[in-house]
């Protein structure tokens, strides 16, 4: 008897659900509104001279807890400033195991690597989730960048500056390009 009553109750619930609009959002088609500090996926930036900002130092690869970054250091003359400096000959970031901890962004001495505001679309092959160097530079141009870079993240952790500025997100939020805000 109890089963019957409960069964009728649950049938009522399912019937109501069936005529209500569903909660599911179709992820790739409809993107959820994200908070402003939302970060995912990566991009490599160019510096103010238009050269690649990454010096290939490999700090990100060393700090990465899941070791998904591989950097190959190369030294050559810059085509723009004619000075000899380090470059990343190859830079690969494997998103399949990435924890999205943002440590690589934090340690970057040249603010070269930043995170994005929009997620990478799901792929059908593993290679779709491996960010090669061309894809990382492509992301800089084609996708909205997140609020942070190394300078800002380190400033947040500075005891003096951090106490003075309890809400760093407010001032940094309107500048997603993250180029001029560094002081």
């Amino acid at each position, binding site marked *: 008897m109890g*089963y019957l009553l409960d069964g009728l109750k*649950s*049938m009522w619930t399912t*019937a109501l*659900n069936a005529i*209500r609009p*569903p909660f*599911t959002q179709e992820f790739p088609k409809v993107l959820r509104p994200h908070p402003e500090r939302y970060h995912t996926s990566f991009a490599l930036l160019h510096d103010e001279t238009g050269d690649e900002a990454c010096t290939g130092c490999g700090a990100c690869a060393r700090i990465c807890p899941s070791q998904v970054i591989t950097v190959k250091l190369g030294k050559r003359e810059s085509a723009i400033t004619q000075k000899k400096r380090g470059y990343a000959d190859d830079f690969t970031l494997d998103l399949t195991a990435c924890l999205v901890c943002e440590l690589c962004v934090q340690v970057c001495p040249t603010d070269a690597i930043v995170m994005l505001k929009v997620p990478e679309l799901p792929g059908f092959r593993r290679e779709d989730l491996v960010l090669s160097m061309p894809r990382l530079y492509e992301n800089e141009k084609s996708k909205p960048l997140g609020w942070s870079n190394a300078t800002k993240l380190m400033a947040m952790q500075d005891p003096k500056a951090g106490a003075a500025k309890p809400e760093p997100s407010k001032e940094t939020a309107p500048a997603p390009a993250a180029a001029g805000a560094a002081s």
Partner: protein
Amino acid sequence: MTLFAWLSSILVAVIVLTVTAFGLWWERKLAGRMQSRLGPTIVGPIGLFQPIADLLKLVQKEPIIPQRADRALFWLAPPLTTLFALLVAALVPFGPKLAPANIDVGVPLIIALGGLALIPVWMAGWASHNKYALLGAMRAVAQSVSYGVPLVLTALVPVILAGSMNLNSIVAWQHRHHWLVVWPVFLGLPAFILFILAMLAEANRIPFDIPEAESELVAGVSTEYTGMHFGFIYLAEYVHTLVGSAVASTLFLGGWDGPFGPSVLWMVLKTCLLFSVLYWLRWSLVRLRADQLMALAWKWLVPAGLALVLLAAVWTQTPWGR
């Protein structure tokens, strides 16, 4: 005559398989909405080609036969389940003329064929040489056998009232008088509900799905099956439910009888409606325990079925039921 037999057979088989395929889609869509999800959306418009994609996927899978399985039985069982489930459809009249097999002993034959579908399930469970499969098969047999009795008894009610075991005559009787669930309602409605319950149990559907109870028996009989053979077991279950709803609508809901329009449409409409209600039940109710299931069959449904049969007999002797 023979040409007509071929055509109507092919037509009915195609109708049943198509409706089953899109019934799969419909069920997943309905289940999704009942759980505030969307259901399939990717393959085709509103996911309409999902069953075709599923079929193509199943067909391509590697067939794996377990080491110690009885190979011949293992291979033979799933196609046979589908065959027997499908064969029942031959006896259901989809229209006054559109019944591939218009047989005078239709009702007992349907129940016999439905019961025959048990044997391949048992074959599959035994041949898999897997404990889950064997337990599932054992339970399936015990359950279907138990619910076969109320199924027969409730199917007797329309037989008594119409005075015929031919399904087409039963529908014709309902066409002349009333649909059985409408009048006599005190006979038709309980018999209909009991028939639906027993039919669900025979087809091993939720809430009577202890033979494949995912949370205890992995997948029951289909545990060891891969590819199309798994698909056949799955398909058989759906065909069984679909044909069961067709039989129920023939016996109790007036079959092809409708106020206007082509009769086939009415039959398909009623069947699909009943099919949807069964899915509604499926996605709302929780599974009964094995002992509750058996108690329900033997302690309640069997005496209730007997009482209904006697009541129907008395009713036909009264001046109103003559």
